[in-house]
């Protein structure tokens, strides 16, 4: 077994994701199977291989794609707030974060 119920709970907590008991067990089984499959990567010796985080090489993304830092109008605040779950223009309102002892 690659992944335990506690692992799934820990990960769901890291991801702020509420899971039901049924989901917990289903994901444990399915992800265990997927991780088992992923284990086949260990057949490959990658000690001397560089990790690849992205496709484009530096010469395609460095100087060529750094733009001037320009100030341009971006009048979307009203639209954005209009569809927010609990707007209090110009703010988003959220439940209280700081608890009083």
């Amino acid at each position, binding site marked *: 077994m690659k*992944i335990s119920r506690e*692992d*799934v709970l*820990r*990960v*769901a907590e*890291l*991801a*702020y*994701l*509420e*899971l*039901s008991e049924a*989901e917990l067990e289903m*994901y444990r089984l*399915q*992800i265990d*199977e*997927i*991780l088992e*499959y*992923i284990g*086949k*990567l*260990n*057949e*490959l010796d*990658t000690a001397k*291989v*560089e*990790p*690849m*985080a*992205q*496709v*484009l090489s530096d010469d*395609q*993304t460095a100087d*060529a*794609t*750094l*733009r001037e830092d320009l100030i341009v109008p971006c009048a*979307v605040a009203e*639209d*954005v707030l209009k*569809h*927010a*779950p*609990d707007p209090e223009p110009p703010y*988003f309102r*959220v*439940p*209280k*974060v700081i608890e009083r002892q």
Partner: protein
Amino acid sequence: MTTNWTIDGVKEALAAKKTSARELAADFYKRIESRNPELNAYLTLSPERARRQTDKVDSLVAQGKPLPPLAGVPVAVKDVISTRGIKTTCGSKILENYFPPYDATAVERLEAAGAVILGKTNCDEFAMGSSNENSAYGPVKNPLAPDRVPGGSSGGSATVVAARLAVASLGTDTGGSIRQPGSFCGVPAMMGSYGRVSRYGLIAFASSLDRIGPLASNVKDVAAILQVIAGRDPHDSTSTTAPVPDYKAELEKPVKGLRLGIPKEYFGEGMDAGVRKKIETGIGLFKKLGCQLVDIRMPHTDYAIATYYIIATAEASSNLARYDGVRYGLRVDDDSLLAMYRKTRGAGFGAEVKRRIVLGTYVLSAGYYDAYYLKGQKVRSLIAQDFRDAFTKVDAILTPTSPVPPFKLGERTADPLQMYLADIYTVTGSLAGVPGISVPCGKIDGKLPVGLQIFGAPFGEARVLQLAHAFEQAEGAAV
């Protein structure tokens, strides 16, 4: 009025005043109204926005002014691509009432070229899926076989083209999500090189893999759409300055003498016998066209699914952190902020998205990062190297798009790993960043479409389109 519109056909009909852009759009909406309840391919229609655009085009025609390249062409846009003021759900409940405050660059460019956006197409939730069954708004039916899936995740975008409910569409491809539904619905479907088309306004799934690309009823139209949406965009730092060639001019170039690689690893076990037969016949057609077939090896192909599902889920777990019930989308109230986050995300995301968030968070978490995420990144290097090596020997690579033909609705939903494994022929090119197209390559028993995939070298879209066009002209769809 005909239903078999092409981009050139629309242009000619408008110029000859046989129809107007407004009439044409109205005709498409009429057909959508009649067919969409059954197909479920469109989630949202945008008739007002379409009307503003058709008025512009019709006024150009009336004034005898030159028409832009996509003037009056009715198109559809996948619902993970932002459209200002038009609901964009990503196929998710968490964005059930999301109205983007800006347009994706690809959308802006389509409209600047005169295209008429009819609406937004259904897809797997956040583009995660290979059957369109992961949409919170119900599955799409394959228009060629209504008991079967249209493929995914751009199932709606493929369906509307195949059912003639749009002349062309935009899809997105992270591990095969344009090419595989193109294959399942019998339409050409293209993913350009990573960096070819701006991702600005594409709601992110896996940022190092996500790409926007076109689907259309023929390769020439695919090329025409790509022409318009390709090229550098200051809003996406990963869109490159590599020049965009004139794809239409390249299309007609002869393919005789081109070297086409046939990688042994793509023809192993697990491929449906009917698919194999069609693909082999299709490859034979290239030989008849004078291409040289070359046996090649791509030894890391078998590791691509494992690599892909590490990298894609890791990036997804990070990208989807933004859905927290604060700024947009669903909120499930609670007195505590953290409980509000948990409940919102628990209620708003569907089963596949949660599965990928859990897996992606796990492979990135302390103690597992090196064993999974770093390992995946290293194997990704090896897979990209397979492609680089291949392109020192050949001009393009031919493979099946999918090992299986369109399968029945509900047939594969119970086993996520089996569903992932069917992405084997498409995820390789996604990881390597190369361009790829799926072109129709016959139908099994005259019913179920098969797609042939052509991979090109990075920024070799012209070569890919040229080969696809030659194949199509040689009746490849009827092999």
